[in-house]
């Protein structure tokens, strides 16, 4: 039977492609949320695979919090252009004009206005009824029981007490008018799987994932990169050059770097195989409130 064996990565790939196609077949107006991170990069490749040799029948949407690393935005525009994606970029103009940012307003207000509110407004504006997200169950504890199809009421809220049982590979796509779903095709992937797949498939990723000397400031134990001059001068003065890389990418003031020498895909995979720390320990937003991911999910953030 050895002719009919699929490696774990190919099995995960087949499962994700199946999920993406189910959603496209059963929903009217899906969109893929694109965060520019490594998981998004894998998810986007899986979508390209699902509809090859055709074009992917839905757009990518990036919610720009206006505080992403510069390299992320460059990468996003180049990738979308090279791969012929229909890219939608949305942001909260009102809050942006009011000067909302993590340094001045704190991570809670910033995330709420520039990410959650911006996302919900964009979903309403385009009337999307299904939104793919790159979340994985191994990311943190509260996601371990998350469904692949996650139901949202017409206010995009998640009701953890009312989630449908999910069995085999049969997904219930029935929703009432105005309701929508978030879909997580990477649910069963681990951080290690993601890196192995990036290596196997040679998927382009933002260079920030590779270790390099970068100017970082130690803020409450998080190594925050001085990415632009919106970081207050007194902080920037404390910046030191360190060999660091990022395990996850988000808003630069809210994403801590780790000290690492891993500057090749091989060394990153090797690092993943042995690290016992959760990747989200580098995300400032997860710690600003008790049970904070759970809360954010209920409000409509992932």
């Amino acid at each position: 039977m050895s002719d009919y064996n699929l490696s774990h990565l190919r099995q995960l790939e087949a499962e994700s492609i199946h999920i993406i196609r189910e959603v496209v077949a059963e929903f009217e107006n899906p969109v893929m949320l694109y965060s520019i991170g490594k998981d998004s990069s894998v998810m986007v490749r899986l979508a390209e695979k699902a509809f090859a040799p055709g074009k992917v029948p839905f757009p990518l949407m990036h919610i720009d919090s206006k505080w992403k690393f510069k390299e992320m935005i460059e990468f996003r525009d180049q990738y979308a252009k090279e791969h012929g994606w229909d890219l939608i970029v949305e942001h909260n103009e009102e809050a942006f004009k009011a000067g909302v940012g993590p340094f001045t307003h704190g991570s809670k207000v910033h995330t709420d206005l520039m990410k959650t509110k911006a996302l919900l407004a964009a979903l309403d504006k385009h009337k999307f009824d299904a939104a793919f997200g790159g979340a994985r169950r191994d990311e943190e504890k509260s996601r371990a029981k998350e469904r692949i199809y996650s139901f949202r009421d017409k206010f995009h809220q998640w009701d953890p007490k009312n989630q449908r049982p999910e069995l085999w590979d049969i997904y219930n796509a029935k929703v009432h008018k105005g309701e929508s779903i978030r879909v997580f095709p990477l649910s069963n992937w681990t951080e290690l799987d993601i890196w192995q797949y990036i290596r196997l498939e040679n998927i382009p990723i933002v260079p920030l994932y590779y270790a390099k000397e970068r100017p970082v400031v130690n803020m409450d134990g998080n190594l925050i990169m001085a990415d632009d001059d919106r970081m207050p001068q007194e902080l920037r003065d404390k910046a030191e050059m360190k060999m660091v890389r990022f395990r996850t990418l988000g808003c630069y003031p809210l994403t801590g770097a780790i000290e690492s020498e891993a500057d090749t895909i091989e060394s990153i995979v090797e690092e993943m195989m042995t690290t016992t720390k959760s990747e989200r320990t580098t995300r400032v937003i997860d710690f600003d409130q008790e049970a904070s991911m759970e809360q954010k999910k209920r409000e409509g953030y992932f």
Partner: protein
Amino acid sequence: MSTKLNITEFLDQDEKKDLLRLLTAGSVDDGKSTLIGRLLFDSKKLYEDQLDALERDSKRVGNAGENIDYALLLDGLKAEREQGITIDVAYRYFSTNKRKFIIADTPGHEQYTRNMITGGSTANLAIILVDARTGVITQTRRHSFLISLLGIKHVVLAVNKMDLVDYNQEVFDNIVADYRKFAEPLGIPDIHCIPLSALNGDNVVELSDNMPWYKGTPLLEYIETIKIDADHNFKNFRYPVQYVLRPNLDFRGFCGKVASGVVRKGDEVMALPSGRVSRVKGIHTYEGEIDYAFPPQSVTITLEDEIDVSRGEMLVHPNDLPRVERDFEAMLVWMDENAMDPNQQFFIKHTTNLSRVRIDNIQYKVDVNTMEQSATDRLSLNEIGRVTFTSNKPLFFDPYKENKSCGSFILIDPITNNTCAVGMIIDKVDNSRKTVLSESEIAEMRKGLSSIQSQDRESQLNQKGCTFWFHGADRALVNEVAFTMERRLFDAGKTVVVLPSGQNIIQSTILFNILNEQGIIVISTSDALSEENQTMIDDMSNKERMHVLTVDASLIGSDFAAYLQELTNAVNELIQAD
């Protein structure tokens, strides 16, 4: 692990390992959290050891040497339980250099049936934990029954807490004998028993010095090496079409996941339900064409001939057909807080096909603790029963035992949209045994009510019962429009009557509504209706069925033929059966 490998070779090899999905059954008291925690943690240590053995120049960040409270790894669930969040299953992940593992961890006592069924639906293997001090208990039997129902082929009976019975072989042997005797009638093909202590690590990753009498392998090695590739059905080719891909006029591909069997380029295939036969022209993937595809690959198939296949239909080999039936029997597990209403129709999702079913009969329900059968007229949460169904169109299925992908389905409540039940098909109904009418249907008839639902009628007539009420001052014009529409619908095979409305608008509306409920299309004519009357008709009727249309020369314009065509298109749209 050979030290001759370099990092690149090690990583190349690691990417090729396979995947095993496992279910853990047992309560916290059995030491389940500790066992899972140890597997998660010690697998990292294995990587450390393997990588240490390689020549490496880079420095690692992680350090797996610290003390870990295994139970902490499962804290997510505890917090959620306190918040009252429904947790039916939590997924845990770990890898070794031989395999990736997905653990479906289902919490202990509450809602055990629903939880275990959910967590176990995709499992290749189940670990059943028993406490060496108590041995096989009711819970062990219940878990084993559910595992056999789900068709999980491999079971590991992990006899835990051996340290608390002095690592005594006799205790272990007695539990094993007990269990094998109990499990025999369940028909689980592969049962393996391991004595261990999750807390002390005996026989989990390494063989224990405390039990020299145990000649087998430790748990991790066992689940790393057990052969599962033969568990897929590679025999009967079934390809439920998911999506039709038409990037250009020259390419018409059918996207899907191979549910079972193997398909090769050039194979003769039949499309169900049409029965049209063609050959596989190509099997396409992102990387290019491949010669053959097998489960669970997701591919795109093109055919030699232009035959019409849409989502929900199935490609098979013509000499190896699935059952194509409307009547079937299944083991049904009720998952909804609300008990079953046996008179309701449900949506059924089976492979990629969405259809409707009704329940004909519940033969019995099973007590999961004793496996005793008893009569019932409905199932409630966590109950399991043997149920007979009729679907409104034929399903293409195989018995679940032979083919999980084509033998499983979910039922969706049409009002709440919840997944209210899940089923495993036993087989088609032997017609000689089929109850023609269910008891609930007979009860309805005795009350003077028809057992035939309007959906049944509509699906038989293949139309939606609607009224098109044409009204206007020019009765001759109204009549011409009405009878033209009648002719067109009749020619299209529809069941339609023209009924001029009487003086009494209310009576006419009631009559039309009754006919519509029977699936019949009514075309009515009348003089111009006042706005007040139009509102009343709308209020009395179902908006999807009652359509009041003004016929007026000024609205029709100069092109009468175009007007009629537009009207025909609109009518055809509205009378589409659901």
